[in-house]
């Protein structure tokens, strides 16, 4: 069995003691034992855990100081056996970023990859790099890691020079061994120089992203481990069952809590009849404040039963909290905006429309879609010694620490978050909410408590990607050139939730906390990809009637607005191509924006490369869509779409089969040409891109949060269906086109790769369905009933 995990060793050792407990009886008996504390007071304890004996279930006393990013020792520890541990302030949402950090840092340090390990995201022992978000792992956050590792190598070479009596420029380093070039028998290992000791080297830089020593990072051409595909280190423990996840944490004396959510959105607690659960075996307490209610029991199944059984008298709100999901888009189009963006206007679109030969217009609707994590939100909080430790998979562990401290009114240095692996999280998930809930209950009852949401809570109450209602108009001249363009988006995104905000986490809302100014939210306009002489892009945000304590709440979900806006913009480009009777790929190529600035030109060159590559890989047949309709039950078609996010450029082609009798759509083949600059781990990148595309297939074909005028009715995997094995594509090709077309640029930088591949796919599918059937679908998701109705209307 693999025992290696990437949680801190002292935490792992502590958890091991308790997870091996064979039965509940032993479990309870063992609660009287003494255990080794896993306090880690500052970075000094990175090498050797503090061995103070403290009572069971206790965390050590003393403040949790912030590891100082200015100290090289906060980033790298070299051990006597010539191995190294890297400490990074990042978390992983399942893309294997830890492996890539290790590759970059091992390469800079000149150590063998398999002699290093990486610990991520626990607030008391890794510097605050914010956790995850925005696909910044390689693009931004790996830079200080690379510079710290380069600095460590520089310092080690100086130490080696002093030890061997050989000038630095006459030394070579290989796999953590420094040797004289002239006489390799004269050598010393990193471990011999600094093993188990501190570097005591101070870095400079005003913020963590700027942290640097005196050493320069290596030119990309000198990397040996970067660009290889070592297998992800986290995977073996995930397939043999040995990994300890945040959901697995147990401590002596721990109890279980389950929430009792309002049965109707906006309902108020009038009374709680605690006698309805007091007699239950294992009952501990009903914890409630305002409209937040939870039942705490000794055992998990008891808490589940208790939460179901507790009698709460709820008062329904006087007015409907929201329109039904069927009426949503009508409501959004008629609502008074809470804010409007300043339109982006180029040329004179109004005049251009009046002189256009052909004008077309279309509306696109994208519903609320959920994270709906495979594991409902959870956290374990330990309140011992007047402090608070939260074991969580939240991707922003540092934010959770700040949020929980403020929410509980505790000094921040008495709170820490130990990040552990959890279900996929692509943005602001309910893991944030669960963290504050566990901490609150733990403080109330003075015992470690594990909170987990049930499936219906997760699906109904987790934050959602905002719904979009988009209107686009385009004008073609007589030659079929796009000369006028007007894009307007409306997003239901008012009061968009940030991460770990102590005044907007769900428990705070339910307790009656109200922020005076709700977050404005946003409605994205598409990336400015095409050179259209006269164009206008504008957007508005609207809100639903119930602003607080609502299950229909929005937060970031994987490229927060990109899939929605790109569905509309890249579908419409296809509609224009069809109106111009042009091949949709050629129509795009002709309009690629020729930026005059360096960034724009760089992106354009790479955009052309990805579009050409995707066409070649798919063997694209250049012709207008739709193709002549087939005669059988199964109609096939192909569609293309393209997008960028910052400097990551992606072109995708989808091949579909549409069953004209059932309306079932099968995405049979996916091709992606992807350019994200420097690639650290090609295989891990390919896998990330594959899954990002399939995530979008799921969103396009299946996913919609549905609700009536009282509550969310999507509450499980039947009422919130997703892509399944049966509809997995037959073939997926991911071509990594990464390269710098400008030979004068010295080094290719890495750009984010976690989200861009999600963006164009919704439109690519719609475009492929149009190619197959001649029917344009403008309302996501394309479930069979909706597709069939559209086909029947068009008499396909």
């Amino acid at each position: 069995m693999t025992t290696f995990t990437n949680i801190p060793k002292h935490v792992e050792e502590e958890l091991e003691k308790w997870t091996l407990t064979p039965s509940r009886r032993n479990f309870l008996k063992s609660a009287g034992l003494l255990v080794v504390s896993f306090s880690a007071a500052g970075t000094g304890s990175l090498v050797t855990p503090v061995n103070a004996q403290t009572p069971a279930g206790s965390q050590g006393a003393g403040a949790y100081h912030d590891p100082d990013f200015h100290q090289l020792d906060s980033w790298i520890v070299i051990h006597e056996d010539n191995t190294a541990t890297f400490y990074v302030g990042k978390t992983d949402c399942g893309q294997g970023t830890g492996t890539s950090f290790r590759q970059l840092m091992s390469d800079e340090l000149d150590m063998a990859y398999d002699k290093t390990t990486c610990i991520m995201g626990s607030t008391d022992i890794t510097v605050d790099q914010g956790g995850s978000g925005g696909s910044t792992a390689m693009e931004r956050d790996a830079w200080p890691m690379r510079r710290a590792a380069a600095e460590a190598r520089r310092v080690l070479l100086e130490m080696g020079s002093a030890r061997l009596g050989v000038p630095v420029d006459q030394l070579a380093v290989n796999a953590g061994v420094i040797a004289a070039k002239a006489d390799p028998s004269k050598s010393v290992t990193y471990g011999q120089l600094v093993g188990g000791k501190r570097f005591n080297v101070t870095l400079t830089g005003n913020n963590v992203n700027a942290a640097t020593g005196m050493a320069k990072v290596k030119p990309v051409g000198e990397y040996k481990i970067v660009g290889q595909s070592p297998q992800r280190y986290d995977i073996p423990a995930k397939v043999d069952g040995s990994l300890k996840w945040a959901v697995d944490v147990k401590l002596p004396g721990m109890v279980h809590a389950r929430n009792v959510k309002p049965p109707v959105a906006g309902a108020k607690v009038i009374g709680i009849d605690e006698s309805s659960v007091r007699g239950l075996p294992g009952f501990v307490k009903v914890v409630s404040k305002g409209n937040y209610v939870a039942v705490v029991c000794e055992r998990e199944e008891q808490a589940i039963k208790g939460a179901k059984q507790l009698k709460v008298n709820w008062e329904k709100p006087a007015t409907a909290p929201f329109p039904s999901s069927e009426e949503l888009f009508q409501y959004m189009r008629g609502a008074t905006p809470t804010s409007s963006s300043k339109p982006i206007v180029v040329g004179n679109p109004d005049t251009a429309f009046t002189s256009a030969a052909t004008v077309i217009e279309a509306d696109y609707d994208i519903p609320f879609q959920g994270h709906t994590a495979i594991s409902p939100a959870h956290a374990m909080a330990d309140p011992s010694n007047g402090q608070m430790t939260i074991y969580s998979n939240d991707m922003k562990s540092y934010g959770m620490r700040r949020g929980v401290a403020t929410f509980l009114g505790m000094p921040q240095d008495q709170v820490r978050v130990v990040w552990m692996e959890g279900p996929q999280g692509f943005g602001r998930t309910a893991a944030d909410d669960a963290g504050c809930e566990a901490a609150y209950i733990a403080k109330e009852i003075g015992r470690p408590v594990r909170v987990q949401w049930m499936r219906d809570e997760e699906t109904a109450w987790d934050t959602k990607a905002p719904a979009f209602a988009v209107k686009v108009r385009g004008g073609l001249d007589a030659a079929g050139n796009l000369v006028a363009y007007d894009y307007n988006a409306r997003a239901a995104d008012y009061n968009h939730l940030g991460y770990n905000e102590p005044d907007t986490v769900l428990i705070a809302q339910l307790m009656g906390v109200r922020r005076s100014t709700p977050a404005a939210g946003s409605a994205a306009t598409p990336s400015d990809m095409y050179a259209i002489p006269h164009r206008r892009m504008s957007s508005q945000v609207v809100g639903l009637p119930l602003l607080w304590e609502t299950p229909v709440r929005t937060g970031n979900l994987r490229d927060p607005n990109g899939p929605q806006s790109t569905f509309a913009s890249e579908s419409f480009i296809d509609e224009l191509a069809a109106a111009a009777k042009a091949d949709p790929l050629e129509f795009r190529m002709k309009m690629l924006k020729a930026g005059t600035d360096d960034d724009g030109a760089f992106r354009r060159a790479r955009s052309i490369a990805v579009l050409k590559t995707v066409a070649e890989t798919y063997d694209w047949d250049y012709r207008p869509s739709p193709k002549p309709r087939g005669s059988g039950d199964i109609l096939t078609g192909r569609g293309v779409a393209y997008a960028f996010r910052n400097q990551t450029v992606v072109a995708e082609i989808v091949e579909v089969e549409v069953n004209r009798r059932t309306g079932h759509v099968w995405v049979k083949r996916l091709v992606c040409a992807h350019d994200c600059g420097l690639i650290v781990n090609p295989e891990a990148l390919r896998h990330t891109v594959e899954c990002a595309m399939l995530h979008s297939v799921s969103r396009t074909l299946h996913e919609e949060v549905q609700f009536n005028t009282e509550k969310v009715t999507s509450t499980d995997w039947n009422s919130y269906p997703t892509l399944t094995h049966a509809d997995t594509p037959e073939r997926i090709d991911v071509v990594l086109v990464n390269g710098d077309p400008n030979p004068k640029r010295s080094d290719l930088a890495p750009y984010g790769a976690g989200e861009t591949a999600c963006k164009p796919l919704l439109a690519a599918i719609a475009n492929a369905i149009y190619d197959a059937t001649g029917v344009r679908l403008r309302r996501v998701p394309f479930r069979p009933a909706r597709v069939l109705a559209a086909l029947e209307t068009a008499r396909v």
Partner: protein
Amino acid sequence: MSNIALKVNGRIHALDVDASTPLLYILRNDLSLQGPRFGCGLGQCGACTVIVNGAAIRSCVTPVSAVKSEITTLEGLAKDGKLHPLQQAWIDEQVPQCGFCQNGQIMTAKALLDKNPHPNDAQSREGMNRTLCRCMTYYRVQAAIKRGAKMIADTHAAAEKEVVA
């Protein structure tokens, strides 16, 4: 509370628990076998899958008292410190993203291959269809099943060769 004996991964455990408790919580909380995981509590996603009598069952909706035969969990697949071929195939294909559902994917695939050692694509998709992955690793799961099936067949062939020799 009832006295219940459970045989899991070759070991017998005596328990004093409420007989209606779903097996999942007993495995996770009393026996510290945390390969099976809570995903929905409704038998819809498969994250809690264990194998009983050769069948992949959903432990979140199975009362502990209903289980009369030996239970195999993810932790019980490896033999003598060697991973089951399917687990090795999962590593070779680098299947997981977050990995939270992979218990269900691997255990369901194991039961599938035990019944049908060489499923065609349609059978493999159908057999796995109710086992959900929110990271959408389905494409690699399907590849790993093919690879695992071949590894198992090769192991059997090698064993037969040995017997003949």
